[in-house]
């Protein structure tokens, strides 16, 4: 009676109140529960939903009908999206349809993620841009077929403000010019790895799209000429120049005098840039918030340090790989008081004293990267823990001198710690993990190569750090099934787990892994004890499994792979190299897993050429990347290779 009344109360809520309740639900899983309550709740969900990330393309038409008010559509997980699909969606589900209920899903769309949609060509893009008049943001990164004609099709989206074209390898200056002229309102543009782009294209872009606030030209072969053009952008706030081999200090001189709004600059891995170039940048931009200069400085020179005194607003600095003296830390901490993140990965000269000086004033520090700063010890860690109470992320990979004492301090003071990388810190033991487990906010823990930890240590983590979603136990040979039991009991939110080379793990351990329903990413290379039974348990239990790496799991038999083929419907990447999978099982895995995009199939001892051929035929429509044994190149039929090539699949021969 009571339950009936309460449910009646909830159901009798007015619609606007339901909307407000719904808006307060942040987590996707909560929203899912909400819409499963009743039809009315589902209606609220479908009317309110603005964003949709589609995992399986076969449901796309239904979903688009269900959610008429979408503003953001993410198709990056649908490898099979191509011109034909787009045409169907627009004509059958879209405005071309006679039925009004089919709605105008494309009309209100503002954001479209088409990342890795290698099958999409200019005709599909043209239809999309024509159907979506409100389009403001498009992501076509990693579309290796995206070239100038596709850019021309996209350029008719005149309202575009954000565009990501990372690794559109076929894009040239001509395509960029199309975009620059067509989409003149562009504010954010990323051109990483668009290797054909030259100074001419960048120059035109800077002249046509004067509203640019964010520009990333990392890895391009552009020269100082481009920097000259970029310097004219008055609104530019973020400039990415990572690993541009042809730019140097002369180019940065242009930046000194231009880009008055610059807030963030990344010149890391620029071979031609030295500290004098950075002096120009720092001198011209006192209000810089973020300076990324990893692996381009040999030394943090005194002249640069002198200029950095003026960067009072600096929040993030990364000078990975540079030589740094103890006095430099003093200068930084005395002047850059608002620092939130410091990257000192592989810096030479980082000492306990230096770190102590640094943290004495930078108390707002949230992220600290001390990867490979071998000389720091528990003293430095204690100082960090004591000063920086709001520390969120600490990376101390390969700092061998850290022991449980340091971790004790962290566990006592840094209660907000979310991420810690202790890879290759052989001083970490079970006691250390016990101290660390006091950081209950911990979500990412990397313990790779920590051979001194055992099941006992892991059980502390399992019982206290309930928010963990990423755990790396690579080559933690002390970890066995009992540790995994403890883990599976506590860390229910685990999404990513690395168990590679944890030799002690057996089928029983995998059965515990199978209890982790959120697990999407599992790496378990070379687990020699596990068999098909263990894999079956994982496949049945981990329904969200998307990425499975089981290279060198030689004992797993066909029954395990059958289970995988039946249950792991969400699998997107798989590594089966050196596994004893048979032809039949391979065909089933490759053919039945409808989301599979990437497969590594090298050295399959129990498979024949025919089996691989058949498996490839079964998945050729959706597979995007496949790694095959090199001699197969001449044994597989040319027909299947052609089909794969035509579908935009990349084959790596090993």
């Amino acid at each position, binding site marked *: 009676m009571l339950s009936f009344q309460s449910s009646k109360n909830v159901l009798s809520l007015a619609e606007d109140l339901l909307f407000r309740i719904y808006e307060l639900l942040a987590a996707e899983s909560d929203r899912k529960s909400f819409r499963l309550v009743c039809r009315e709740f589902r209606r609220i969900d479908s009317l309110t939903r603005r964003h949709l990330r589609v995992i399986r393309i076969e449901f796309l038409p239904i979903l688009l009908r269900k959610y008429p008010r979408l503003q953001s559509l993410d198709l990056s997980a649908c490898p099979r999206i191509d*011109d*034909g699909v787009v045409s169907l969606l627009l004509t059958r589900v879209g405005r071309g349809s006679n039925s009004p209920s089919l709605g105008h899903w494309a009309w209100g769309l503002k954001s479209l993620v088409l990342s890795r949609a290698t099958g999409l060509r200019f005709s599909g893009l043209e*239809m999309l841009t024509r159907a979506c008049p409100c389009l403001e943001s498009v992501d076509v990164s990693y579309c290796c077929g995206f070239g100038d004609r596709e850019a021309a099709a996209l350029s008719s989206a005149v309202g575009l403000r954000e565009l990501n074209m990372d690794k559109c390898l076929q894009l040239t200056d001509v395509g960029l010019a*199309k975009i620059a002229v067509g989409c003149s309102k562009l504010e954010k543009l990323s051109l990483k790895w668009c290797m054909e782009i030259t100074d001419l294209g960048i120059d*035109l872009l800077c002249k046509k799209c004067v509203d640019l606030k964010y520009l990333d030209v990392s890895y391009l072969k552009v020269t100082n000429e481009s920097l000259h053009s970029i310097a004219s952008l008055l609104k530019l706030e973020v400039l990415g120049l990572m690993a541009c081999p042809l730019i140097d200090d002369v180019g940065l001189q242009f930046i000194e005098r231009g880009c008055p709004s610059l807030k963030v600059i990344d010149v890391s891995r620029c071979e031609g840039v030295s500290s004098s170039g950075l002096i120009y940048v720092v001198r011209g931009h006192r209000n810089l918030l973020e300076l990324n200069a990893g692996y381009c400085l040999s030394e943090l020179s005194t002249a640069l340090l002198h200029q950095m005194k003026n960067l009072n607003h600096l929040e993030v600095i990364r000078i990975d790989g540079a030589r740094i003296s103890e006095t430099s830390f003093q200068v930084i901490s005395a002047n850059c008081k608002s620092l939130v993140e410091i990257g000192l990965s592989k810096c030479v000269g980082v000492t306990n004293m230096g770190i102590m000086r640094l943290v004495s004033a930078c108390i707002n520090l949230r992220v600290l990267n001390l990867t490979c700063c071998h000389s720091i010890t528990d003293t430095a860690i204690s100082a960090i823990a004591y000063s920086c109470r709001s520390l969120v992320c600490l990376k101390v990979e390969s700092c061998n001198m850290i022991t449980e004492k340091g971790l004790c301090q962290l566990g006592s003071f840094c209660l907000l710690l979310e991420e810690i990388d202790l890879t290759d810190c052989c001083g970490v033991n079970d006691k250390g993990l016990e101290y660390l487990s006091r950081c209950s906010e911990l979500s990412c823990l990397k313990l790779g190569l920590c051979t001194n930890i055992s099941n006992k240590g892991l059980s502390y983590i399992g019982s206290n750090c309930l928010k963990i979603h990423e755990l790396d136990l690579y080559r933690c040979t002390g970890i066995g099934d009992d540790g995994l039991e403890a883990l599976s009991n506590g860390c229910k939110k685990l999404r990513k787990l690395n168990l590679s080379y944890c030799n002690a793990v057996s089928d029983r351990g995998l059965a515990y892994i199978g209890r982790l329903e959120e697990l999407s990413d599992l790496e378990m290379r070379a687990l020699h004890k596990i068999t098909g039974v263990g894999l079956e348990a994982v496949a049945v239990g981990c329904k969200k499994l998307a990425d499975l790496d089981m290279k060198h799991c030689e004992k797993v038999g066909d029954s395990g792979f059958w289970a995988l083929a*039946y249950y792991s419907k969400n699998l997107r990447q798989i590594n089966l190299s050196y596994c004893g999978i048979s032809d039949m099982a391979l065909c089933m895995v490759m053919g039945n897993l409808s989301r599979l995009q990437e497969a590594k199939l090298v050295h399959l001892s129990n498979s024949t050429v025919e089996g691989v051929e*058949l498996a490839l*035929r079964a998945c050729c429509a959706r597979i995007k990347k496949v790694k095959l044994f090199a001699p197969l190149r001449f044994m597989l039929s040319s*027909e299947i290779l052609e089909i794969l090539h*035509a579908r935009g699949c990349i084959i790596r021969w090993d």
Partner: protein
Amino acid sequence: MQDGSVNDLLQASKIQDWDPSAMLNNLSFLGQKIHQLQDLVYLIIGRKGQVLGRPDELLVQQQQLVTADLTSIIVQLISTAGSLLPSVKQTLSAATTSLGQCGEFGGVVFPSSAQGLNDGVQPQNAGGSKVSELPNSVDITSNNGNEQSNHIIEEHELKDEEDAEEGENLLPGTYEILQLEKEEILAPHTHFCTICGKGFKRDANLRMHMRGHGDEYKTPGALAKPTKESSSEPTIIKRYSCPYAGCKRNKDHKKFQPLKTILCVKNHYKRTHCDKSYICSRCNTKKFSVIADLKTHEKHCGKDKWLCSCGTTFSRKDKLFGHITLFQGHTPAIPSDEIKAAPAGTSDGATNKVGSVNFNLSYVSSESEVQSSSMDIKGGIDDAVGYFSPLSFDTCNFGGFHEFPRPPFDDSESSFAFLLSRSCNYSQKSGEE
């Protein structure tokens, strides 16, 4: 002193180095001369206003007269100035025009350094001063012999011919205008044998031809290039007029710009007033009237065509991008043949081979309407749901496949048979299509 000839002045400057009283005399002389010059300029302006309407021979004559007067005054001015500042003498020749122009303002200010003067004045000279009779003034001011002066004249002329193209600024009347008739211009040959009438393009070829008409044409003298007799006496500059009435190159045009050589006349006439009869064999679009232009174009035609959406082509990418920067809304055009080739080559081929669904019809070309494409698809695909379902492992056929609780392993044999049959189907399909 006022009536004293230029020679006297020169003498004076030679004898006395620097004398304040002589300088005062010279200055007053300069002042008078400048006033004379001023009057003359007024005169020119007045006359121009009068005869603006009727361009006839009278105007030319008057202009010539004025120019001559001007020249003599300038010459005197220069020499006077030269006597004032002996150290500048050697470089004064370059300053003549500046003097001529500055005359009106009643004084001449020399920069302290002679080099500076030189530099400062030369651009004006090149930029086209009103005074054209430069050689004469040089002749007098430089205290050198005639021969050297002539040498300078020649150099100057040569320079003129090389440098000045469109913007050549010769005063009207200072050169002889020749006008060839249309037939003459278009005639393939310009040198005709007086004996047999055979025509030649080059005089040298004619001379070679003449050898056949008798021994008298074989002498070294007859075969040698006829030397210019004009080297000793001052030559009259020849310029050419286009016979086409209304053309800017026609002598009756208001802003007449003469052509320099016969070759210029020929090329100009063909390019501007004739049909373009030579068509590029590669692109079949570009037309030319001068065969040399065609040959130049053919060298570059077809390689690296940079095309703008407005139809303009460029040989270089940076030129195209410069053009696009300049003009609002212009974009680089992507060659059309590529567009035609791509869908047929990659996508259609792939879909046919895969043989899953005939969605090759959905590859609508950019021009066609969305509506029409929807029709195509309806014809091509029976069931949209079938298209979206996982390829070849149809969910409808194998419902049991997807029910997780069902232990599937017991009948793996049959499901594999299904797989095989499907895949066989596959290869047959791909073979057919």
